[in-house]
């Protein structure tokens, strides 16, 4: 009895917590609607027109193709970045020579907006899938390197000392101490990297290509001022970004990284 009531209470609390943000969203939509009706805009769509526009695209399947194309590019570029950044970050964190040698160039490349790489990407890789994948790689690899390196640098000495005391091999030290100690920071790096990657894929698709959510937005505008689809695309991008961040946040619930967030 009390257990079910506990769950009921929790659900109730979550609902109550969800109310204010939902109210804000509702207010924004209402204001938008009112403004469009009030100004009698011929081009700017009402929220309802956006919904019907999105449904239309969903029904003929093009919406899913665009979403799929964007997610594929983000997924590939991000995975490549992870494969490069995590080992490199661990190495740079552990070996000070590697850090001294490589850190300056990475720190210099890091603040360059990935958008600035677009011309080079097109020059090198053309307008196929490789360009956006490259841009995503470039945008997410540096934050992940930096976070991983910082994670190694901030491992508490007492853990390294304990490992040394028990006389474990370097392999065990790395597998059982260094990597788990850095994992929470790696997850932070992944969140940042994935966030930037999603930002960049849409921008990259706006320049070229024939698919993806960024292309969908530009194409809707160019082909007949379909601003309902432009806004539908923007909202979908926002929602998917939210879901991607939520998915990486789930990693923070892993038992082996919980320690970092409870104390």
């Amino acid at each position, binding site marked *: 009895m009390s257990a079910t009531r506990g769950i009921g209470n929790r659900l109730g609390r979550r609902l109550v917590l969800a109310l204010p943000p939902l109210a804000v969203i509702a207010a924004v939509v209402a204001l938008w609607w009112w403004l469009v009706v009030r100004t009698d805009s011929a081009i700017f769509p009402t929220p309802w027109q956006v919904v019907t526009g999105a449904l239309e695209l969903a029904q003929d399947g093009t919406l899913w193709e665009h979403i799929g194309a964007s997610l594929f590019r983000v997924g590939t570029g991000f995975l490549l970045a992870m494969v490069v950044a995590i080992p490199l970050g661990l190495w740079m964190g552990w070996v000070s020579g590697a850090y001294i040698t490589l850190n300056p160039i990475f720190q210099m490349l890091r603040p360059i907006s990935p958008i600035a790489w677009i011309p080079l990407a097109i020059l090198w890789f053309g307008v196929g899938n490789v360009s956006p994948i490259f841009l995503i790689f470039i945008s997410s690899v540096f934050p992940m390197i930096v976070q991983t390196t910082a994670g190694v640098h901030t491992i508490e000495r*007492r*853990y390294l*000392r*304990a*490992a*040394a*005391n*028990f*006389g*474990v*091999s370097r392999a*065990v030290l790395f597998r*059982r*101490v260094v990597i*788990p*100690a850095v*994992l929470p920071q790696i997850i932070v790096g992944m969140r940042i990297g994935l966030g930037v990657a999603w930002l960049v894929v849409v921008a990259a698709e706006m320049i070229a290509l024939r698919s993806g959510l960024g292309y969908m937005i530009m194409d809707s505008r160019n082909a007949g001022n379909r601003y309902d689809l432009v806004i539908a695309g923007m909202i979908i991008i926002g929602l998917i970004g939210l879901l991607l961040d939520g998915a990486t946040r789930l990693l923070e619930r892993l*038992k*082996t*990284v*919980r*320690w*970092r967030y*409870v*104390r």
Partner: protein
Amino acid sequence: MSAKTKIEITGVRKGFDTDRGPLPVVDGLSLSVADGEFVAIVGPSGCGKSTLMNIISGFERPDEGRVLIDGAPLRGPSPKGIVISQHGSVFPWLTVRENLMFGLNGNGHGDKAALADHYAAVVGLKGFERSYPHELSGGMLKRVEIARALVVKPEILYMDEPFSALDALMNLRMRNELLRILAEERHTVLLITHDVEEAVYMADRIMVLSPRPATIQATFHVDLPHPRRLGSPQAQQLREDILKELGL
């Protein structure tokens, strides 16, 4: 009856370079600890106790002098002597059982999980083998740390203010726990503490360090049977004498 010497320290000297010139921390200190003996070193804060512990446990090298363990020069930290320190070093990303199995490398240990669970039971953590450290209290964490040391069957336990981060009650409780465990498995113990009562309650011999640079200022033998009563006249007298040495 005189057991063989476990730890032999002769003429150890250590200093650090600071902005204001060299700072001598340990100044020609010699001591020896017999096998199975419980020696406590008490001293004022900042007198170089922890530096001394780092040197004896192999984490730091002395500038001069030498440290012999079982007659052989100490080369660095090893599982032969495990350090248990104030802040603890239980790995928060491993369960209690995984922590206890951490030091069991190689294949000479039989069933590692069973061995880990045995020592978890020894320190009173039966039923918590699968718990993560953040789910445990401070006292329980200290037990995990002690158990993790015991699993590798160290010959020496180096304890650097082991219980001073615990609340007073848990501090008293852990003293008894430690003595109970030591009665079962006879380890050589070197305890560094600023808590005179803790030393009087547990140690066979108490050495008082001078203010920095540290040397041994006085030695007291504690010939009281366990369990000791800190309120007894002998214990009180001993406490007074030690405090007097510390200038209090």
